[in-house]
């Protein structure tokens, strides 16, 4: 199985996402923002970073880059697409997920290991989790405050489209503690925290067992791998 990772000008975590895909057992394929070629990948990751220096709005220019035409087409026909941090912002700006992301309410950049509760375990990227499962993966952003109008928020909650919620202290003012969303079909998932930074013991968040041993992020990549192989 091939997982494509799109590199935009200003992407930072594209290599980490590729590495996470490989650790999960997939082949990682580097995709370039300026191309119109998805290179026959089976799933796509839009990685974290600061594409186009966050100019205009976070993710706004990347959402209009050449390869996004193909990414949007693929997403609309069911291909799994995961947007992480800046990638989540790109998905929102590309109208593949609703709402918007604004500057953290406290005004500071936040970087820490973040507890999340899995709210939807039937998406392409979360099927390896259980609903209600508590996981910990790194969070690092300046503009991670999720907002939507009351009607959209009610729809997201009513239809079970909230994929992840922050546990404990809300780190950025996101409405309803929303950390990540899925679309109705469950193939497009976006979240502010970074699963690709919690895939290998020695480099992940601390756990009660050992320092830096947390690998909760790996399940995102193994989920999409298993779902794709099961479909083949």
């Amino acid at each position, binding site marked *: 199985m091939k997982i494509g990772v799109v590199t935009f000008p200003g992407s930072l975590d594209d290599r980490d996402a590729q590495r996470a895909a490989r650790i999960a057992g997939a082949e990682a394929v580097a995709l370039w923002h300026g191309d119109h070629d998805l290179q026959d990948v089976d799933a796509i990751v839009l990685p974290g970073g600061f594409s186009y220096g966050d100019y*205009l*709005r976070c993710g*706004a220019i990347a959402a*209009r880059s050449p390869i996004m035409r193909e990414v949007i087409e693929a997403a609309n026909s069911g291909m799994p697409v995961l947007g992480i941090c800046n990638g989540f912002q790109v998905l*929102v*700006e590309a109208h593949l997920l*609703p*709402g*918007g992301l*604004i*500057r*953290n*309410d406290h*005004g500071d950049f936040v970087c820490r290991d973040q507890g999340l509760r899995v709210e939807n375990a039937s998406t392409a990227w979360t099927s390896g989790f259980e609903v209600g499962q508590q996981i910990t993966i790194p969070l690092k952003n300046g503009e991670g*405050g999720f*907002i*939507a*109008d009351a009607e959209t928020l009610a729809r997201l909650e009513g239809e079970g489209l909230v994929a992840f919620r922050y546990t404990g202290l809300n780190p950025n*003012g996101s409405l309803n503690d929303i950390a990540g969303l899925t679309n109705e079909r469950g193939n497009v998932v976006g979240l502010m925290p970074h699963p690709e930074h919690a895939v290998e013991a020695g480099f992940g968040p601390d756990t009660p067992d050992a320092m830096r041993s947390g690998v909760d992020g790996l399940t995102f990549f193994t989920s999409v791998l298993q779902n794709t192989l099961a479909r083949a």
Partner: protein
Amino acid sequence: MPTIVVEVMPKAELLDPAGKAVAGALRREGGHPFSDVRIGKRFELTVDGEVTDAVLAQAQKLADEMLSNSVIEDVVKVTVA
């Protein structure tokens, strides 16, 4: 060449941390009647040729669809400079 100015503001009900920070600095400064600040964006579009109604309409469309995000911002002005 003519210029079309587009102005975009964060929605009134949304937190504007940059504006809030400047408002805080203004309060510390004192000696003036300014109680609040909000910060938006101004775009200047250089137009090749004449600004017709159709061109203004194109600018409005661009302002609505690309220069702003209606979830978080309002286009408050599209005018010829």
